[in-house]
């Protein structure tokens, strides 16, 4: 049941294949990308971006474990910080937009007027 070139890690006396973690992360990332592209609600698009960032975190931590290197985990923490900042600013922009008008579709924001 091996998909990639083997790289196993030892977890509790068992061999786990890192590639399965990477495949799961890729699947979650693609799901998030689908959400960003097909959903029209800006709030849901932000949520899907968060999903993509989480998938990237899984990749970073999996490589950190496989390489026996803590830097992947440090990068994952940095990603979480950036994601928090992104969520805060994005939600503030959304609240500001919704104050002016009742938005149902992200395409309604095609003009740059306030």
């Amino acid at each position, binding site marked *: 049941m091996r998909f990639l070139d083997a790289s196993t890690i030892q977890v509790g006396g068992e061999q786990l294949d890192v590639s399965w973690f990477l495949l799961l992360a890729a699947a979650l990332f693609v799901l998030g990308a689908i959400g960003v592209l097909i959903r029209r609600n800006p709030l849901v698009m932000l949520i899907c971006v968060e999903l993509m960032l989480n998938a990237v975190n899984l990749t970073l931590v999996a490589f950190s474990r496989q390489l026996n290197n803590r830097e992947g*985990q440090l990068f994952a923490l940095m990603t979480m910080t950036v994601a928090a900042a992104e969520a805060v600013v994005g939600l503030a922009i959304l609240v500001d937009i919704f104050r002016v008008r009742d938005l149902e579709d992200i395409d309604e924001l095609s003009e740059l007027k306030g």
Partner: protein
Amino acid sequence: MGPATLVFWIASVVALAGGLGVVLFKEPIRNVLSLVVVMLSLAVLFLLLSAQFVFVVQVIVYAGAVMVLFLFVITLLGPVREQTTVRLPWQVFISAVAIAGFAGFLVAMLRGVTYRAPDAGDPLLPLFGSVQAIGLGLFTDYLFPFELTSILLLVAAIGAIYLSRGPRARGPK
């Protein structure tokens, strides 16, 4: 199949189901709760990868704080109906092609990965992924990026306060 493999498969299936929920549910509150499910199952996977500190941060900061922020905004904005009409022609088709191409690219890239040999040292040492190891990294080698993130958070907080004060409070244009 031992317990670790079992935990991995259960967490993966739950994460994928949550991801589908994020994309497919029509009400934003269900999207957010699905995302919480995804984050918690990813936290389990982090623990499986012996990243204890990242696990704790994921549960407290991400699944706790950031998601509560989303929920607050949803309650503030009230229910939002989503239009199903698409204005741009070919939009769905182009999206499908782009996504299929991207997924194929990812899988092809993953098939070509050759792994580097792990660094020296025993990963099963109790220090790996612990607060000590992470703190040591953050405050020695990665001190500068760490300080930069604090500036980033400050800027984000100021920007959020400014944006959410409303147009009238910002003064004349």
